């Protein structure tokens, strides 16, 4: 009884990781490596196992099929864009094949191919997350960027930076918080969060009175993370802030936000 060997190919969409560290580094390093790979002709070759492989003129469903490769012939994979693969046929024709068809090809060794694709399991177990959210912060608009690191599937640490744009004052906040997801394996996963940070506010230039202030804040909140597709998450949350002002009373601010994020 022979056991078929299935190989998972990791695509360089892992470079998201590097991109977040520095876009330019990726830009500068990607170009030479691609050039080297092409110069050496180091493309992955697969052979067609189905009756034929359909090549489209573009990377999308609507583009017409202009060429087919017969069973047994092999094609070189030049690159990938979203769920489409650009391949070169033995006669030199270059076209785009969708992932479903590519997964039914065989490697030169005869083993099956599975192209690595982020799924809901990765959504539960991914270590890093980066996203943007926008919403309402006590009547003002807020735009936030955050990065998160999962200590385990339930608990993660997040760092947030936000810009607040109001009618009377602008400002920013920076905060660190801990989130707890009770059911991280659910597609719609609720979480609770708790954190602290600082808020800086400055009155608008058309308002004469008032001075810039920086205060400490603490917050608690809850929300949902929803797995959308590939590495994509939708997120909605509510947070209740307490601003520890230097005056007699503390301020309370409510915040509602929605946005999207990537995990990697």
């Amino acid at each position, binding site marked *: 009884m022979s056991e078929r060997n299935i190989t998972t190919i990791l*695509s360089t969409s892992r470079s*998201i990781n590097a991109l977040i560290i520095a876009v330019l580094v990726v830009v500068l390093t990607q170009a030479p490596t691609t050039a080297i790979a092409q110069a050496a002709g180091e493309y992955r070759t697969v052979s067609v196992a189905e009756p034929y492989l359909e090549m489209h003129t573009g990377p999308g469903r*609507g583009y017409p099929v202009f060429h087919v490769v017969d069973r047994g012939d092999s094609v070189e994979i030049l690159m*990938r864009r979203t*769920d489409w693969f650009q391949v070169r046929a033995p006669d030199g024709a270059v076209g785009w094949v969708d992932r479903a068809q590519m997964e039914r090809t065989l490697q030169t060794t005869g083993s099956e191919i599975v192209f690595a694709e982020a799924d809901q399991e990765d959504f539960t177990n991914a270590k890093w997350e980066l996203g943007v959210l*926008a919403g309402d912060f006590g009547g003002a608009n807020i735009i936030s960027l955050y990065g998160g690191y999962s200590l385990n599937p*339930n608990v993660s640490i997040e760092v947030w930076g936000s*810009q607040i744009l109001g009618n009377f004052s602008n400002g920013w906040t920076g905060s660190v918080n801990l989130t707890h997801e009770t059911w991280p394996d659910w597609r719609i996963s609720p979480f609770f969060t*708790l954190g602290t940070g600082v808020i800086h506010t400055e009155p608008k230039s058309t308002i004469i009175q008032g001075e810039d202030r920086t205060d400490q804040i603490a917050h*608690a909140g809850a929300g949902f993370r929803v797995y959308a597709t590939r590495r994509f998450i939708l997120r909605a949350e509510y947070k209740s802030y307490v601003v520890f002002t230097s005056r007699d009373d503390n301020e309370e601010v409510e915040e509602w936000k929605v946005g999207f994020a990537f995990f990697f």
Partner: protein
Amino acid sequence: MESRFRLLFLVIFAFGFSGCAATKNLFGFGEEETPPPAEIPEGQVIEPEVERREIKEPEIDSEDFELGAFIGVMSIEDFGSGVVYGARLAYHVTEGFFVEGSVGQSEGGLTSFEILSGGAPLLSNSERTLTYYNLNVGYNILPGEGFIGKGRAYNTALYISAGLGSTRFAGDDRFTVNFGAGYRFLLNDSIALHVDFRDHLFDIDLLGEEKTAHNLEGSLGVTWFF
């Protein structure tokens, strides 16, 4: 002080409640239930588990990012038109959807009021510089092909996008909503030309009463997929 107690209660409630629902999951430190190993029936050829194995063969070059620059004209409401230039980074999530971030800069001119009255200018030169950033979600609404002559076909897409951001103009940061449409023309598989039209909306009260300013932008761009 009262608010601190409320915060404390909210925290206790939040974590307590989550604990009740699934105590063993709290902080993930509970015992993990490992399901008994599935018995493989006789005669099964393919193992259901996918082995994730690192391989040395060349990886497939994944080109979902698009980075580029653009230049065009931006009309700043009441302040004339100026050259706008900037940079754009997009990530193609699926063949239809993409997310993008842009930064741009333009320069406002004199208002009619300043020209006619001949009086003191409303803004200093540095306050006339408009800079913006935005974060958008876009969709390739009409992907297709464009033909030049008989023998050349180029992939194209008409896309729409909208999003949020901030604009710094006249001494303040202003919450800005933008929407627009563009045409992407791929010269080859990695380089694309863009024509993009966009409206940036923000509130401004510089000339008396507060109003929503429409700032139209038209630009030409070049992007590179990587």
